[in-house]
């Protein structure tokens, strides 16, 4: 009696023989721990990073070139520098205001304890943005600084002295930054003027929203939001954004508050990574 062994070629002819293993691999990847999944991503994407960097470099160069051609009557660079300076000064003012409010609170409580401001040494790594998230519903950027430069997971990323996100994946020469507008981002913050604690979360649009703001909270449009050191992940007093829309919907338990990030992330080209 002859037993016919299944031929590999015949096996492959069956579409299910391809669909099922591929879906099984996808499911396996889907349920991998996030850390492992990020490591796989960093390893797989490393060969593409130079191409990404080159494309981004060409894109930015071409963009600058066209800018100069289209508006020859304006000194684009000078304007850009001035805008950056204004943004930096505005943020400095917000920081100073925050410090003043803090000090006022401390005085009003008649604290008898002397609090020493420990100078935490923070080293700063400059990096250029070399890529953006390919999904419409996630917000992250890729920067050209990685473990070689000393970047670590959970390092804070700022631009113009404003918080824009934190490092979630580190490769050897590049890292992925989860932006404050990403749906998975949750940042402890404070309303500068009223000192109320808030949670700033992303919602995959250009704006953020504040979570769990009680109906009776004193909030008005234009109020500044700064980061809070609660939880120990973020440094305090970094500007995040300003309240843009503040409303109470029907029978909702909490207020619906929309926040406009201080920095327009789609327009920046470089960031600073705070490594401590």
């Amino acid at each position, binding site marked *: 009696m002859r037993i016919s062994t299944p031929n590999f070629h015949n096996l492959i002819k069956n579409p299910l023989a391809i669909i099922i293993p591929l879906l099984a691999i*996808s499911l396996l990847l889907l349920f991998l721990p*996030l850390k492992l999944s990020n490591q796989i991503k960093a390893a797989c994407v490393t060969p593409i990073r130079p191409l990404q960097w080159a*494309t981004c470099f060409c894109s930015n160069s071409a963009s600058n070139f066209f800018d100069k051609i289209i508006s020859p009557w304006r000194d684009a660079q000078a304007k850009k520098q001035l805008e950056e300076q204004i943004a930096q000064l505005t943020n400095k003012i917000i920081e100073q205001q925050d410090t003043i409010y803090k000090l006022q609170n401390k005085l009003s409580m008649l604290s008898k304890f002397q609090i020493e401001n420990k100078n935490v040494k923070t080293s700063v790594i400059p990096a250029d943005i070399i890529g953006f*998230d390919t999904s419409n519903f996630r917000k992250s950027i*890729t920067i050209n600084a990685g473990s070689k430069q000393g970047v670590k997971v959970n390092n804070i990323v700022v631009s113009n002295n404003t918080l824009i996100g934190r490092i979630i994946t580190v490769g050897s020469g590049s890292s992925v930054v989860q932006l404050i507008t990403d749906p998975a981002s949750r940042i402890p913050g404070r309303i500068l003027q009223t000192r109320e604690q808030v949670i700033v979360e992303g919602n995959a649009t250009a704006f953020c929203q504040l979570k769990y703001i009680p109906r009776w909270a004193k909030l008005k449009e234009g109020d500044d939001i700064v980061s809070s050191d609660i939880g120990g992940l973020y440094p305090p007093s970094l500007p995040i954004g300003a309240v843009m829309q503040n409303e109470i919907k029907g029978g909702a338990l909490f207020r619906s508050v929309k926040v406009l990030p201080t920095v327009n992330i789609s327009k920046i080209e470089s960031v600073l990574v705070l490594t401590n």
Partner: protein
Amino acid sequence: MRWFTFFCILICISAFQSTMIKWITIGSAVPDLYFSLVVFYSFLTDIKRNTITNWFTGLSKDLLSEGSLGVNSIFFVAIGLLIWSIRGILYKGHLITQVLITFIFSVIYNIFYAAYVAVSFRSLNLLPTLWAIFVCSLYTAVIIPVLFRILGKFQPNQRLFSVGDR
């Protein structure tokens, strides 16, 4: 179908989507070039190649996107199979068919993906999300004629809607 060509196209699309997409972004409307590739190969190839190309397309999108690996590969394989299964009843190669199919399936894909994100993080708002889905799908559909023309040049020995290879 040439696999080498496919992988070159995929790398180019990945590089473009992750770096230069802001050049063709209009407001909140961002075209999804990966999805166009899924529709193109679902029309073009047989079920096996369609599954493999869509899986690789989804995986490369996952690699360059924040979040878990494998989500887009599953969605793209499923969408690819859906398009492949109905392509026989479609009006062959007509421009409007290509645009409409892309728009409808892009809306379906984006709804599923948004639902996945909403379930995972509970932080999406309904109206802005629906608006984003609509404009992104519309933009993806609008660029289809140009993109299919370019992609068709790289796969010249295949024709769209070649039902014979089913």
